[in-house]
């Protein structure tokens, strides 16, 4: 049961949040110019990192905000929490 520190509300339990999967997947600006391969990569292909995973979470049963989390998918340790739009932070592997 993760304890997630919402950038607004502070430490709250996993049940109040939902995970939105991998972060930093930028929607292409002109999808119509992409070939099927590139579009399929965007829609479906994932890094699915074993180790530090940069992912999106939403405090749905709270302030409703989305934010980014760097979390180890091996230990579940949360290594960083940062705003949507910010670059990936440096985190220890």
């Amino acid at each position, binding site marked *: *049961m993760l304890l997630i520190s919402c950038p607004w509300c502070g430490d709250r339990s996993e*049940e109040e949040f*939902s995970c939105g999967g991998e972060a930093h997947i930028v929607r292409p600006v002109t999808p119509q110019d992409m070939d*099927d391969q590139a579009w399929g990569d965007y829609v479906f*292909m*994932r*890094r699915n990192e074993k180790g530090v995973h940069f992912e999106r979470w939403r405090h749905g049963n709270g302030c409703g905000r989305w934010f980014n989390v760097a979390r180890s998918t*091996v230990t*579940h340790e949360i290594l960083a929490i940062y705003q949507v739009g910010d670059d990936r932070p440096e985190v220890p592997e």
Partner: protein
Amino acid sequence: MANYSIFALGRNALQRHRHWPRVWRSPKPRPSYDAIIVGGGGHGLATAYYLAKQHGMDNIAVLEKGWIGGGNTGRNTTIVRSNYLNPESAAIYDHALNLWQGLSQELNFNVMFSPRGVINLAHDHHEARELRRRIYANQLAGVDAEWVTPTQLRALCPILNLDPGMRYPILGGTLQRRGGVARHDAVAWGYARAADRLGVDIIQNCEVTGMTINDGRVEGVQTSQGEILAPRVGVVAAGHSSVLAAMAGLRLPLESHPLQALVSEPVKPIMPTVVMSNKVHAYMSQSDKGELVIGAGIDGYNSYAQRGSLPVIEETIRAIVELFPITSRLKMMRQWAGIVDVCPDASPIISATPVEGLFFNCGWGTGGFKATPGSGHLFAHTLAKGEAHPINAPFALERFYSGALVAEHGAAAVAH
């Protein structure tokens, strides 16, 4: 002499069981093989068995990072059925189901396949409609499927709560009589033993850590026991598929999530069949040893930790107590998780890759145990021939680019 039978058992009993042969060897890896299977789960071992048995390839190895069967094969709730919606899926799962039926004899290892029937419950009109659609589709595909009324359900599973006043009353369900459960560990062991007898090297504690790729062709793998060469590599690593893909510079349409399960303490038989419910999300069967085997859902985040979070278990148990009120005073004895490779269309991937000679069999997610024999059989064909068997052709990676997905969310929604 090495065959298992009641006579062998008797003979060995007289010799105080001192002379049973080894189930499989523990060989050191050779420098090179004709083909390498990465992943010693049920699918990988079955692949090796059929490669040796049906394609005459005996210079092959299965590389397993831990102990064989220690992945999802060893931690799944063992439900076997083939009543999937799309004809492509019905074909692949039914191919497997047909193989299940003679598997103990084929392997000379009792995998305890127990076709005790699998029931999927409908709790509202929408579910009932979807389930009926599946029944009619299955009937056309030649997969046994029938609708069962609450009255029939009472006879099939007397402990089921059929009170029309329950929060989500049971309107009926589907029954696949040929479906059931099997002894999961035995599947891994049975295939391993049979493959070993055909000369396959099963190498445990051998983790693949890299791939040797030149000019777009795979030439071998790097492992914790050194480099091993092979012109063909088949990866069957379930939850770890993305990790292996990354070694080859590829990404897959997969996310790895913990999928949890639990067992109760052993009790005398109360559960003659398998019951699954999408709506309240739970499913349960009873093992031959007496525990109730209960499947929960996936945790909502990526993980390789083989541990899940408690709310998922609580949700499942709430549903179980609702569906089977007499279980309220039974106790959870152990809970655990496996790492499942969840695919966007809830269908597997059996596919060549942009790297020549490198093939993946993955994406079985929450429901691939049932496919073990079929998956191994088809993947062996794919590896041996270098091209897909017609049954697994629709399951290539290409579908994520063309859009020809095989959507099985309805049929696969409960994790099993």
